[in-house]
């Protein structure tokens, strides 16, 4: 919290309330945005520390450091924290900070709900993290919570279920807020097809959140009643079916992966035009592509469970729809490339991370295509190939775009430029190490190394050692990120209002640092006419 106090040091003259209770009761979108972002940064290091333990145990074959139960709980908690505690809150944080400024609104539509949505999070994660210290340990059945395994969780089980309920409520609250803001508080002249793509991707993400998270809440509620109240939704003995959980879970789970990545598309669509000094190529096709991806995300869920024994028609349907997603995603990637084509490009840190995103996310997309092909998925299922795939789309996808967005808008928030040299170090260290970390995992998976196992056959030793070394370097490199942020919050070269000379958008018309209250009067419609996206 100390950092967030500093974040605000520049705003005091703008009658911001003071004292620590300010953070408890604030309804200001910038305060809440900062809290979300700081929270997710803290969780990033907690979840990251767990990943370091995982890589430590996998450094060599055999069991050296932790026992298998604890290893499994590290795997489970790492996933839950990174998904629900890092990426989702971080996007809500960016939405809070940026969407009102991007659409020319004075604040979010439902500021009290906003405050609530944030403050649920620390409590939810206290519940979840407390399980590390209770008898039986933290949940260890995997973040996907498949029964019957997850029903063997000890005292941690209700903690897990209620934490998931709280996290869902928080995210739904955030989504309602974003949608209510965008649909009712746009400045005059800001029509829907003038919205910056970050706002557009968030609209679609909001709908995905509202449509899919309640389904997860339902599924975990069924787990809860199965364990404690004698129902048998998922118990074959009572006429239920454990496979049904997988269907319900992935009906949520697949939209969820787009919840994590769609705002990233928005961020990259803001950064690349800025540093290529050209307007975004194919703006409308970008919007339609995002909508198409969101629609498809609801009819592809069973590609996560090709091996459960589905009829051939089912396997084919889910394979074709899955591969169809490559079309709108390809539209986006080609649009980004076309935006850079013959542009006057410069390579500041946000641009480097955005370019890293485009290339590395695409690698993750390609391995996703391989996994989408049913017959070969029978080989890849539950191997390290899957682990490599989703870390390419989540770490070098979602996390890279979050880092890019932080460097991009940090000067606007703090009023200072970050240290460009250190930023470049951060990029190159991260990009080299993240590939050393995850690329060998493709080979491990193809060779048959299963995921979620603390020990492995000796033929996998070399690649695991390389992967672990990459993991530790990547983890340590992120400390540099925190140092750069803190340094930037404390001071640095004064940032101009526009910050980047290719930047377009209403947020860049405000002063740097952005005043505590912005757009109390709507912006001049002619600024919007001039093109903001």
């Amino acid at each position, binding site marked *: 919290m100390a950092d967030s106090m500093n974040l605000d040091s520049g705003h005091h003259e703008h009658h911001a309330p003071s004292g620590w209770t300010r953070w408890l009761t604030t309804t200001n979108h910038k305060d809440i945005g900062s809290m979300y972002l700081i929270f997710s940064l803290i969780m990033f290091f907690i979840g990251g520390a767990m990943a370091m333990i995982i890589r430590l145990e996998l450094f060599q074959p055999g069991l050296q450091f932790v026992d298998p139960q604890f290893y499994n709980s590290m795997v489970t908690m790492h996933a839950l924290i990174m998904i629900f505690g890092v990426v989702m809150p971080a996007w809500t944080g960016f939405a809070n900070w940026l969407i009102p400024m991007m659409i020319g609104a*004075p604040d979010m539509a439902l500021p009290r709900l906003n405050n609530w949505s944030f403050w649920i999070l620390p409590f939810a994660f206290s519940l979840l993290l407390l399980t590390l210290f209770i008898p039986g340990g933290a949940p260890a059945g995997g973040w996907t919570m498949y029964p019957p395994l997850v029903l063997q969780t000890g005292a941690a089980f209700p903690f897990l279920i209620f934490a998931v309920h709280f996290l869902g409520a928080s995210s739904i609250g955030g989504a309602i807020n974003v949608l209510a803001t965008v649909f009712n508080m746009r400045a005059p002249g800001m029509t829907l097809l003038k919205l910056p793509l970050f706002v557009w991707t968030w609209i679609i993400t909001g709908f995905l959140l509202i449509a899919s998270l309640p389904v997860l809440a339902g599924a975990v509620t069924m787990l809860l009643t199965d364990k404690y109240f004698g129902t048998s939704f998922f118990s074959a003995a009572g006429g239920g079916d454990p496979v049904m959980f997988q269907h319900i879970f992935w009906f949520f789970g697949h939209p969820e992966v787009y919840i994590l990545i769609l705002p990233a598309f928005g961020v990259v669509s803001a950064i690349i035009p800025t540093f290529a000094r050209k307007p975004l190529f194919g703006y409308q096709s970008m919007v339609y592509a995002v909508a198409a991806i969101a629609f498809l995300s609801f009819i592809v869920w069973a590609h996560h469970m090709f091996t459960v024994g589905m009829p051939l028609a*089912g396997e084919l349907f889910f394979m074709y729809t899955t591969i169809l997603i490559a079309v709108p995603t390809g539209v986006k990637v080609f649009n980004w490339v076309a935006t850079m084509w013959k542009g006057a490009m410069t390579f500041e840190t946000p641009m480097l991370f955005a370019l890293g995103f485009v290339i590395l996310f695409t690698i993750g997309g390609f391995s996703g295509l391989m996994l989408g092909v049913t017959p070969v998925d029978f080989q890849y299922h539950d191997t390290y190939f899957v682990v490599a795939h989703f870390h390419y789309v989540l770490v070098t996808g979602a996390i890279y775009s979050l880092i890019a967005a932080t460097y991009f808008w940090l000067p606007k928030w703090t009023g200072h430029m970050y240290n460009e040299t250190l930023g470049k170090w951060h990029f190159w260290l991260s990009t080299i190490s993240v590939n050393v970390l995850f690329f060998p995992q493709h080979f491990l998976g193809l060779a048959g190394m299963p995921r979620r196992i603390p020990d492995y056959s000796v033929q996998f030793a070399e690649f695991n050692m390389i992967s672990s070394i990459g993991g530790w370097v990547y983890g340590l490199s992120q400390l540099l990120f925190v140092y750069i942020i803190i340094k930037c919050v404390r001071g640095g070269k004064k940032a101009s209002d526009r910050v980047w000379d290719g930047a377009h958008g209403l947020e860049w018309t405000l002063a740097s640092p952005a005043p505590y209250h912005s757009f109390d009067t709507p912006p001049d419609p002619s600024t919007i006419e001039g093109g903001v996206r």
Partner: protein
Amino acid sequence: MAGRKILNRQGINKTAIRLVVTAVIMFGFGFSLVPLYDVLCEVTGLNGKTGVISRQEAKSPGELHEDRLVKVQFVTNVAVGLPWRFKALEKELFVRPGKLTFTNFQATNLSQSSVAGSAVPSVAPSIASRYFNKTDCFCFVVQSLDPNQTKIMPVAFVVDSKIPDNVDVVTLSYTFFKTEEKI
């Protein structure tokens, strides 16, 4: 929030209420997937759920395929927590589609107390489950065994004569689960 006076309060509330209602509906939708899934399994044969027909129906088969035989294999499992031994007395049978066939299973209670269990059937491949019907089965009711008791349990089934030509082998598996309530 001291800000613009022209805030569209009504519009905001309307959007928020609509979205909350959507979230509630989707919560209900999650639960409605449960019956939906059962219906889907019945229609597609997914999950290997077998059908039940009366003896009357079984005795009036459509056309008998005199020269066709389908191999039916029996697989038995006992779930964790049930102290029983459970086996099929015949490992496999060659049956004529359309003809009522009988076989026996045997369960032994290995513990010193009486225990109740119920068996859950499943047929593979799933396409075959739509053509696999039973007239009598020990799995229709809860089975209770006294200490060390052994019980022979019959099954009567018909493989429908309309079963697709490419299905030559059908596997019927039973898993016995411990049942808490005595029915």
